């Protein structure tokens, strides 16, 4: 489905629906009974809802997202973490997998260290709390981290994980994609091929027939 049809690009201020019969979803606003796109993206109708799928922009965190974070600062009882969002996030000792005494945070995570964590809470002032009590959560101690545009994350994963499976199959790499546009790879070999495939997906994200092209590229170059 995702591969088949070209989609209409909408711009901020484009009329996308009528507030009487339809509901204004993500990336839209209502004015004088009409629904407008608030941002550049692709129109997506889900039932009564009209949403805009962004084609660009920074990562906007949402509760439950798995993200890859870089420790900015170790405080006495918590860490300040860059999650590639407009705001840094906080991880407290209690939400870490370790028993962290006061003043002991640096024993576990130092500035520059990388973790996989999950977004636990976001309050009105956009204070973000993380937890490491989740299945994929851990400290990243080996491998490669690359960054892509967060709006391209769904394409790298593919429908039901299809794109990711293709890359894993041909490269043998273990790959974790953070919702915030950071990707963690562990490869025996083929790291550069896996990165090349991901960069190609990022560059050609809204083209049709992309999965087939990626598979062909991986098959051809995996000599």
């Amino acid at each position: 489905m995702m591969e088949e049809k070209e989609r209409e690009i909408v711009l901020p201020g484009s009329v996308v629906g009528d507030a009487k019969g339809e509901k204004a979803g993500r990336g839209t606003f209502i004015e004088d009974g009409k629904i407008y796109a608030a941002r550049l993206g692709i129109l997506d109708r889900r039932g009564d809802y009209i949403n805009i799928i962004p084609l660009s922009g920074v990562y906007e965190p949402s509760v439950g997202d798995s993200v890859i974070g870089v420790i900015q600062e170790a405080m006495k009882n918590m860490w300040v973490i860059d999650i590639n969002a407009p705001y840094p996030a906080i991880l407290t000792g209690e939400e870490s997998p370790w028993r962290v005494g006061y003043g002991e945070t640096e024993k576990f995570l130092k500035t520059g260290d990388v973790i996989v964590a999950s977004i636990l809470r976001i309050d009105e002032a956009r204070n973000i709390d993380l937890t490491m009590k989740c299945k994929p959560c851990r400290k990243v101690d080996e491998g490669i981290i690359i960054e892509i545009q967060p709006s391209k994350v769904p394409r790298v994963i593919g429908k039901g994980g299809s794109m990711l499976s293709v890359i894993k199959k041909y490269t043998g790499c273990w790959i974790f994609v953070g919702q915030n546009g950071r990707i963690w790879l562990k490869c025996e070999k083929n790291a550069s091929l896996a990165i090349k495939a991901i960069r190609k997906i990022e560059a050609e994200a809204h083209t049709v027939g992309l999965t087939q092209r990626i598979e062909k590229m991986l098959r051809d170059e995996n000599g």
Partner: protein
Amino acid sequence: MDIPEVKRISAVKKDYLIKLAKQGKRADGREFDEYRKITIERNIIKKAEGSARVKIGNTMVLAGIKLDIGEPYPDSPEEGAMSTSVELPPLASPDFEPGPPKPDAIEIARVIDRGIRESKYIKLDKLVVEPGEKVWIVFIDIHVLDYDGNLFDAGSLAASAALQNAVIPNERFGLGDNEPLPVGSPPISCTFAKFGNAIVVDPGLEEEQVAEARFTVALDENGDIRAMQKGLKGRFTVEEIKNNINRAQIHAKNIRKLLEG
């Protein structure tokens, strides 16, 4: 709470770049001794006396030349003057801040300035309007537009290319017809970064972020040395410095071909 403003490169990324370097590889697939693609476009700013836009990979800088008439320096009454500045506007990187030039920008400008000055690229003795009274002052302004590493070489190349096509604006000052700015042979700048035990030419942004030491050399058309600068906290051995210069002599020949066409 005091959060560092510049996002630091993650420890994992640093480890990865160093690990790759030990295997003789770079993250973007280049050889240690390979520049990114270089493009030069000239004469793009109408208001400038000369201009050039240089891209090295994703790094993009624009150099503009302006001339004005002023007094000569007391110690060189029979010579024109030159001034080089580099602007790192916040447009070019999430990490650049507005405000007066910071030490980074000043260092880049001074290294580029030395290369041009010491190679006598601009024939300053031909820029006298009235000996001892009025001379031309050549302003070289280097505006960084997109920062993905190696501003020393990109800035130097843009300055050289812009000077190459610059004119003396005699008309504007009521001094007759415009004429080409007298220049000789340009200096070519080559920059290296050292991390792990690797020394790579034309460092990209991530390589600059992990670099322990940096080395720039400006060479004239004979391959002689006209300016050098070692930067950052790390160290080079004497052998490494010599080796860098020898490598630069090869690169400089190729870059000179691009510049002189």
